[in-house]
């Protein structure tokens, strides 16, 4: 009488255990299937849903041209890192993926040997990525990625509000403060600054520091020649502190999300917003007024833009479909794809693109002209700090900037925190 339920229960247990094991055993491997005609491509969810649809259309073009099918996996940005690291470590990763180019991201993967070495591919396939961009994805002598776009950091401004209030583009920081006062007196938020998420702090400091320290000064800071406690860093932080204390920024910027900050600008409730050139798509879609783009002013001049790389495309070291993956990278660097980037997603490719004849708006055309100077070396640009720094440093920067905007920390304290984090990263060999 007892034997039957015992066996049944045992069988049930075994089935349950197998099911659970199956549930926790990870995703099916793509690495095992060496069918070169299909690759798995992983990327973070684009901010605008329509951009994903555009991307799918572009991938379809590649599929038609090459006969290689691309299986697209899209993850929320905040999960991308954890999932990708886990997948690559388990040998179950995508063949190709889009990822940040900084030392804390691609650099860490390269250090662990998880990225395919593209050094030879650059030579044999004649890829024309700008040298400065190529350097950013080169770790310990190996080039491991293809940077996909260049971004500029600066201040967007509402030309109609400026014109109505008789304000011209600020020529120095005092001008900016005076303009902000005029705008504030008119009942408009002068600069829509959001810092609820924290990462915006890296961009805000990059802008003001570029105009204070210049490209050489920033370079010295980033390579450790100059300490982060230098007067330029303190002054760059203090510029934002002064604007905040003068009530020229969004009330309590640390309570305002990035999207809400942008919405203030789009709706005309704020006259300026400080962010990156990726906002152009949003500006063109949402702003019903002319928009200008300027650098954050320096102490005595109009300042310079900061520029940096966005993300890049990388190939897993464990891929069994390297030839297909390389063909995909070839496609991403075709003139056709470059023009698609410019025209459809208003992104600036990291390789030369003939932009004449494209339907670029005046705003985007200005950014295109600016960034062309990065490539030919004729322009002076600062750096986007967070794309060149470690996680430890970026965390200190983001937390420090929030502390600055909430009055918990002085510019001197934040700069000291940055130096401490820089030294810690250096000590850890990062």
């Amino acid at each position, binding site marked *: 009488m*007892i034997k039957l339920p*015992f066996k049944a229960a045992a069988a*049930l247990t075994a089935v*349950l255990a197998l099911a659970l094991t199956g549930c*926790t055993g990870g995703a099916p491997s793509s690495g095992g299937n060496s069918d070169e005609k299909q690759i798995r491509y992983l990327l973070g969810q684009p901010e605008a849903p329509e951009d994903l649809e555009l991307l799918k259309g572009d991938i379809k073009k590649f599929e038609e041209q090459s006969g290689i099918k691309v299986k697209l996996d899209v993850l929320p940005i905040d999960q991308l890192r954890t999932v990708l690291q886990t997948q690559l470590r388990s040998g179950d990763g995508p063949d190709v993926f889009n990822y940040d180019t900084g030392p804390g991201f691609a650099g860490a993967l390269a250090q662990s040997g998880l990225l395919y070495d593209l050094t030879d591919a650059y030579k044999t396939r004649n890829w024309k990525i700008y040298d400065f961009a190529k350097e950013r994805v080169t770790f310990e002598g190996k080039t491991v990625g293809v940077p996909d776009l260049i971004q500029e950091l600066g201040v967007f401004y509402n030309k109609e509000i400026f014109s109505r209030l008789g304000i011209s583009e600020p020529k120095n920081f005092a001008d900016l403060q005076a303009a902000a006062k005029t705008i504030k007196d008119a009942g408009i938020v002068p600069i829509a600054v959001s810092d609820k998420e924290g990462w915006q702090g890296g961009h805000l400091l990059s802008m003001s520091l570029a105009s204070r320290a210049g490209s050489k000064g920033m370079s010295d800071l980033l390579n450790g020649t100059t300490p982060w406690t230098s007067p330029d860093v303190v002054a760059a932080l203090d510029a934002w502190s002064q604007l905040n204390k003068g009530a020229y920024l*969004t009330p*309590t910027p*640390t*309570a305002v999300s990035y999207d809400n900050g942008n919405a203030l600008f789009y709706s005309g409730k704020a006259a300026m917003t400080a962010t990156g050139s990726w906002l152009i798509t949003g500006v063109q879609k949402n702003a019903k007024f002319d928009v200008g783009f300027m650098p954050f002013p320096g102490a005595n001049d109009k300042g310079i833009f900061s520029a940096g790389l966005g993300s890049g495309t990388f190939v897993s070291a464990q891929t069994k479909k390297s030839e297909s993956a390389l063909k995909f990278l070839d496609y991403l660097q075709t003139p056709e794809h470059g023009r698609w980037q410019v025209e459809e997603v208003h992104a600036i490719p990291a390789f030369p693109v003939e932009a004449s004849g494209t339907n670029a708006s005046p705003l985007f055309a200005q950014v295109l002209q600016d960034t062309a100077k990065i490539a030919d070396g004729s322009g002076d640009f600062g750096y986007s700090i967070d794309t060149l720094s470690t996680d430890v440093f970026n965390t200190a920067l983001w937390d420090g900037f929030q502390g600055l905007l*909430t009055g918990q920390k002085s510019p001197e304290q934040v700069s000291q925190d940055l130096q401490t984090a820089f030294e810690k990263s250096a000590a850890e060999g990062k």
Partner: protein
Amino acid sequence: MSSTITSTTPAVTRRAQTRLGIALIAPLMILVTLFFVLPMCSAIYYSFVDFDGINPNPEFVGLDNYTRMFTDPEVWHALGNNAIWIVLGTAAPLAIGLVLALLLWNVKRGNMFYRLAFFLPYVLPGIAIGIVWGWIYDPVNGWLNKALQSIGLGHLTTGWLGEPNTALYAVLATAIWASTGFVLIIFLSALRNVDTEQIDASRLDGANAAQRLWHIILPQIMPVFLMVTTITLVGGFSVFDIIFIMTGGGPANATNVMGTYAYNSAFKVSDISYGTTLALLITALSVPCAVLLNRLQRRLSLQGTGA
């Protein structure tokens, strides 16, 4: 004089019963092993190495993560926030839930509507609650600041989630709003079992409302009260989602609790081992509290004071 108790059940039946017992508990044991024992062993292992999420052969570092944890000022700050959360996040829903339950106890008309209205926030997804309350607290377009301005209290407007002095309490208020409905429904159920004759008798004896609550009602619902206390209190140790959604632990770590600090350490700065060590501390602190309250609840139930 000694005596031995001898089972009259045949040995064959006892063995069969044993096998049946094992078979019945085996599924649960497998679940416990897979989802508790193994992850716990794994967590303990990671707390003794330096794992960055990538390196497959992390270096053994002994007690370094533990030493670092106890000398890390942010740990004490986060624990302080946890303490605030535990005290206010436990006391406020209990007090508000009890008061509301007492008010609704004898309400006949619209009783179901009130129950639904108060319980609804509890079943809403945390992400939805966080986002909606984020809008309410928005410093420029938020309803709260607009409401304060409209009633002449504009001087009280602030960036609720962006000011270090208000951020934690603003998130806590949201959590209290979300959890009070649960407490209310449990208390309402417990109140149904309260002996109303005792209340009537005490009323005849001249006991006022507070005395009736303290001496008659509370003792009868005490096990349920302790059960709810245990759930909300342990939740205070492990609180994570609503803070992560609404502030991410910011501004500048002002709303960091152990959960967000562990997450940020593990996944923001890729210090998985340290994050795991912090998570173990949460477990080490919360389990004894849960066990203690559970035992107290059981003892009161056995004493027959339970509802």
